[in-house]
């Protein structure tokens, strides 16, 4: 087993993580001192402002703050939110599942549909279907995801009110069990569609070009020559080989996905990490912003590493060179 390759990938992931932690610290300390906002209120006396600054440890010299930061992050203590005074982990903990649900469904659907369309287009290269699919996916890939979201709202929530266009479940309802799942499912339809349309193009383009390359390989002709029906040649041999580049290239995609989460969640009032970070920016709640930014980066690093592992298991040429 060629574990050296895998270990190399793990090391780069870890190094990037350290790099992110250090950069995060400076990035947010430079963000400006949030307590200056208090000076604005008529009733806050300068003495109170100092009290708050001391509370957040902002009065210590930068080095002192960095030492606290390293100690805190090591113990996964991201401080408390300045807005809700709750530990940042609780805020993130409440928001994370919703983002995973939205991003998960969106990415999954985008992968399945994107890849499938990619294969269909590759096997019908040059025909009108190929051009049509290429046009459609490049167009959805080019359009801003929040704009797609707004169009979906216009069509399916305002013009023909089939689906709810906001929140993750009917507000204030105490549904349980299957009713709640269905209710959430119904609220999930539009945001997930927006997410899927956003990511579809990337998977389609990668899969199509990868399939086109594979289909010109000699072994595809040999497989057909052995009498295998074309459909089984495509599904059994061409697709597995075409999936390999898809796994690595789609890893870069996760960075975009997180960006999409911010905008799509904001339009649909989907209480995920994206919306939490958007609110944190407006409330100048920098512990939460720092926390969400960290979780986004860690998620992307992890997903990239996962993609490497998946590639490792999928491709024998890497397992045992």
């Amino acid at each position, binding site marked *: 087993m060629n574990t050296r390759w895998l270990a190399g990938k793990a090391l780069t992931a870890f190094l990037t993580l350290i790099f992110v932690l250090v950069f995060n610290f400076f990035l947010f300390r430079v963000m400006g001192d949030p307590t200056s906002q208090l000076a604005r209120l008529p009733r806050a006396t300068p003495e109170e402002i100092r009290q708050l600054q001391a509370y957040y440890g902002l009065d210590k010299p930068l080095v002192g703050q960095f030492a606290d930061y390293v100690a805190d992050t090591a113990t996964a203590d991201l401080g408390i939110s300045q807005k809700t005074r709750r530990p940042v982990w609780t805020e993130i903990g409440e928001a994370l599942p919703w983002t995973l649900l939205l991003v998960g469904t969106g990415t999954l659907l985008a992968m399945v549909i994107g890849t499938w369309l990619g294969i269909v287009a590759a096997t019908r290269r040059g025909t009108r279907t190929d051009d049509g699919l290429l046009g459609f996916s490049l167009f959805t890939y080019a359009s801003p995801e929040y704009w797609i979201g707004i169009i979906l709202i216009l069509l399916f929530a305002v013009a023909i009110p089939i689906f709810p266009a906001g929140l993750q479940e009917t507000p204030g309802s105490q549904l349980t069990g299957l009713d709640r799942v269905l209710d959430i499912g119904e609220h999930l339809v539009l945001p997930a569609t927006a997410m899927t349309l956003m990511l579809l193009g990337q998977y389609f383009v990668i899969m199509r070009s990868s399939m086109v390359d594979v289909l010109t390989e000699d*072994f595809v002709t*040999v497989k057909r*020559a*052995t*009498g295998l*029906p074309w459909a089984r040649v495509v599904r059994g041999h061409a697709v*597995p080989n075409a999936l390999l580049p898809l796994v690595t290239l789609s890893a870069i995609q996760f960075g975009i996905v997180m960006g999409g989460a911010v905008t799509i969640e904001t339009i649909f009032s989907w209480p995920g990490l994206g919306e939490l970070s958007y609110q944190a920016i407006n409330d100048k709640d920098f512990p939460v912003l720092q926390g969400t930014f960290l979780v986004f980066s860690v998620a992307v690093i992890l997903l990239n590493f996962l993609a490497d592992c998946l590639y490792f298991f999928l491709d*024998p040429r890497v397992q045992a060179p």
Partner: protein
Amino acid sequence: MSLLEIEGLEVRHRGQPIVAGVDLAVEPGEALGLAGESGCGKTTTALAIMKLLPPALEPSGTITLRPPGTDEPVRIDRRTERGMQLVRWRHVSLVFQGAMNALDPVQRVDRQILEAIRLHEPRAGKLGGRIKELLNTVGLTSAHGRAYPHQLSGGQRQRAMIALALACRPALVIADEPTTALDVIMQAQVLELLERLRTELGLALILISHDLAVLAEACDRLAVMYAGRIVESGPAEQVFRAPQHPYTKRLLDSLPVIGGARGVADPIPGTPPDPHDPPEGCTFRPRCPYAADVCLEEPALREVASGQRAACHFAPWEPESWAVRRPGGTP
């Protein structure tokens, strides 16, 4: 009756023929060499036999196969795709040039052989033994079988390819440039292997190569293709001794003879014609030193010696007449 008969095979690409008027026959157990520069339509002909041409190419003409053990002949040109799936690999199999990507890189070698067998003999029981035996016949062990293609050397991969080709005990194997990607020693081993298999299994072989030396050793009969047409065919030994077409002659002249006079073989001037605007009359005319006005009219492939046919107005050529006949002379 011959195992495979091809009459008037034509393959057109956007209306222009890139293979025209090909007539070939292969007897059971016979080895037919198909020679010609790259791009002259050799591979296209091979793919046409197995009906594996890409959609852009439209074949026409008749291809008849008479596999042993079946009474009425198989008209390949009239077969549907589903029909061909029953023929491919059971009666005719293929060995590709660069075996590196001729085997599925993410699947073990024995698995690929198993899949081919299972396809045509679904009810076959345990195939472990049979695969092991197949590998041994091509000089590989079952350990090689368990490996992935990238873990084998060039020669081993080519042997695996041959094992795969023999998996369903076909009557005819088409080997398209099987040794081109190998070094000389490996080349000799593979050719010797093909020869041994042919005699032991009574296998018919179509060996495609641009290298006449390879064909000289391994084949009984030889056909030379130029710009999509058969310009000469006949018993290999006879064609080598008395080529009846200027193109074959030039090909033979460009062969280095070990121990022969030292000197760089003079290459054939010019380049193969573009299939989309073929020259008038004989396709070799623009590059033929003996071309004359009569060559403006396309010569037919006719019997010029016993069992030997050539498509040249000046045929039959006596060995010494190559020097005498002035370029441009009358027949």
